[in-house]
């Protein structure tokens, strides 16, 4: 099926009271039929500025032969642990260029987490459970969020300035057109994305 991507963006500037001079972008992602897209990652890359790598950590659990969460957005540099909550072993791997790795069959939690320091999508799989898959989205910004079931995500604590807003979600055919926005302090901005592809 041929996929066409159409991006309709409506930027509404809303002056919402933000006492610490931080702006917030409210994003809403829908599919062409208007249904909200769940687990879509919305992230904002500040223009002209490089941000330091995060020393953060995150967890990609394996439970009931599923990766939890299914989609995990992390800032580049984040260390992710892969605990195994099942009573069977898993062999987690990724052939994604952003992070190619393989965790040989293991139970429990590996001693060392993996640091994802390169932006990109890392597709995770379990070599002995073909149906298991998950995505770690490595972004070079601290400003990111994942949509809830209502398709809404909220990026808060943004400094004033220009940003490029990106959206990614699994099964999308093509990344929706990034949107350039400029936020001011305390500004609450609402951005809508219409993605093409399965939600």
């Amino acid at each position, binding site marked *: 099926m041929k996929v066409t991507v159409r991006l309709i963006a409506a930027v509404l500037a809303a002056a919402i009271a933000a006492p610490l001079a931080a702006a917030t972008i409210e994003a809403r992602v829908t599919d062409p039929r208007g249904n909200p897209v769940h687990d879509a990652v919305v992230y904002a890359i500040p223009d002209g500025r490089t941000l330091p790598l995060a020393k953060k950590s995150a967890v990609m659990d394996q439970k009931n032969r599923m990766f939890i969460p299914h989609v995990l957005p992390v800032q580049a540099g984040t260390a992710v642990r892969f605990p195994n909550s099942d009573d069977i072993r898993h062999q987690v791997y990724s*052939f994604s260029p952003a992070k190619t790795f393989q965790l040989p069959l293991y139970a429990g939690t590996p001693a060392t987490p993996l640091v994802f320091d390169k932006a990109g999508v890392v597709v995770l799989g379990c070599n002995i459970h073909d149906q298991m898959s998950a995505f770690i989205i490595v972004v070079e910004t601290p400003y990111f969020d994942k949509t809830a079931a209502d398709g809404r995500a909220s990026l808060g604590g943004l400094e004033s300035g220009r940003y490029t807003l990106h959206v990614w979600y699994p099964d999308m055919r093509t990344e929706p057109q990034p949107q350039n926005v400029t936020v001011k302090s305390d500004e609450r901005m609402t951005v809508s994305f219409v993605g093409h592809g399965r939600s």
Partner: protein
Amino acid sequence: MAVRSFQARLLYLLIAILVLLDAGTLISVYFAGQRTLRNTVADQLRVGSRVLNRILDTRARQLSDSLRVLALDFAFREAVASADVPTITSVLANHGSRISADAVVLVNLNGVVTADTLGGRLSGKPFPFAALLRDAQNHGEASAMVSFANRPYQFVLVPVLAPRPIAWVCAGFEIDERVLTDVRRLTHLDIAIWSSSAGPQLAPDESKYATLEQPLPTGDGSQVNALLASNLEEAQKPFRKLELQIFALSTIVLIVAVFAAVIFARSVSQPLRVLAEGAGRVERGDYVTPIVVEQEDEIGHLATAFNQMQSAIATREDEIRYQATHDALTGLPNRTLFLDRLSYAIAGAKRSTGSAVGGPSVGMIMMDVDRFKEINDTLGHQVGDQLLIDIGRRLEHTLRQSDTVARLGGDEFAVMFMAPTFKHAEEVAARIVGAFDAPIILGDVSIDVNASLGIALYPAHADDAGTLMRHADIAMYDAKREHSGIAVYEPGRDEHTLRRLSLIMDLRQAIVRDELELYFQPKADVRSERVGHAEALVRWNHPRHGVMRPDEFIPLAEQSGKIGLITKWVIRKAIAQCAQWRREGLDLAVAVNLSALDLFDSELPVFISGLLTEAGLPPASIVLEITESAVMKDAAFAQKMLADLKRRGVCLAIDDFGTGYSSLAHLKRLPVDELKIDKSFVLNLTETAADDLVIVRSTIELGHNMGLVVIAEGVETAESWAILKRLGCDMAQGYFMTKPLPAEAFKAWLQASRWGSSAR
């Protein structure tokens, strides 16, 4: 032969029906077999086609599954993810060989070939089977038949998952002999699959194979065809066997049926042949041998009917033969049978002796009852018939058993007997005459039977039966004429009779050919010794027999009814001559003889008057001489006739007076002028012949007493002339004066002799 052809026809018909039945069965079996065969083969091919499709589908699924498993191999995926083309190529070859793929191609998600096991031939180019790729993108995997390197391939395409698709791996499997062998084993069909560009690999003989060509679904629009072929010879084997069995069976049935038909045809035709032979025997006259058919059916009835018919024919033939050979009235043999027996007897006599002289002879008597017609007319036919029957009986009683008595017809009987001598034959005849000495009594009538018998003998009188009968007949007529009762055939009589017949025939032409001539004999007045009359006498100058006198042929003319013509010819000639003489100065009356039959020609008086008037002669110039017996035939009519002539002035004379039995009373009534004494009284008239003298004298006196002129005929001597003159006879005629002379000679004689000098 009709019987044989009937049997043959029956046989042919039966055989033809049987052969037709057999042929029909065989043909229908053949065609049903062919139809079934065609349907079976077509079904087989259709099933084969479905089997082929199923096998290819199954193979595609199996290949797809194999490839899928392969694509999930971690090492494989790892190698693919490495993006190192040589590595990828080697893993494609390595893993491809695990599933026996003939070609393995790796395609990236953009549809461009990353690596292949074909020496990189496709690398860097778009995947050649785009439709296959699209199908895979839509359904997660795809398989299709394609034509690859001019060979039919099954290509399967599955994603390489990590776990999300990172690439497509495609494996191609050539449809090789192993696949086809599977299909063949399952379907018992020959099969070929080829890509259209390569052309068919199998070109089966159409007469030996039934084929089904079928395009196979392909993933790239290329043409891949499958040809399924069924070996007809193989398929036909069971039908051939069935046909052979039916043929053998029907041949046996046919042979048995032909035998049965032969027996049946024979059972019909054999008795028919017996019947035909029986009919043939009947045809040849065998009415004794019966037809034997030992059957109770229609033919048996027919044989019985044949036998009945045979005996009926025999009976009827006996009756017919009896009727054909016997006289119905008397029961005596008839003419046919008599002639048969006579011939038989003569033939027997001829056989028993070489020479006719002194040998046994066969005698026959022809017998005719005198006056039978009178008896029949007077006493009636019933009496006549009864008389004939009694005559037959008397004849039979008179003769020996071995002799044959036959009735030839009418009152004519014939007797045949073996006669050693003439004398014996005459004795037989005398005995027959003696048998009728006693009268035959019929009721209250007593009849005297007189018969005339003619005797003829073999070999003295004839050499065959027919001639013998004719001669006996002639002898019988002689006996009748002579009132002698019995006459023996005189040799030569037969020739006389033949001459008579011949003359009768010639007489028809005599007048036409002018063979008749008139001679004249003078009648002289006795007292004056002068000739006053000339009697015209007709002569016949016969071309073969010479000059014939009237008494030789006039009776024949009377018998054959020619006398009227001759009489008229004589009268015409005589009157003409008389007229000529008168013109020449001879005053003579001519005398013409009339036959008894002429008196019945009522036109004669007119005819004579006419001629006299024409010639300018007085009626008394002609004298008509009528014999005494002629007048006596029918006295009343003759009298009228003579009266008519007399009234016309014609002179009439009674000729040959003295030979008949006319009564004087009758004579007295006749209107005649003259009386001619028959020459038999005159010829030997001498002074010493007392009887003749008395008769002549008394006749002259009688004539004179009745006022008639008396003429003597046959005057040959001076003595008789003198006697006649003395007795007072008026006229005389005879050789004493002259024999009859032709007209010219008569005139010359008359003018030269003393008799003619005093012509009136």
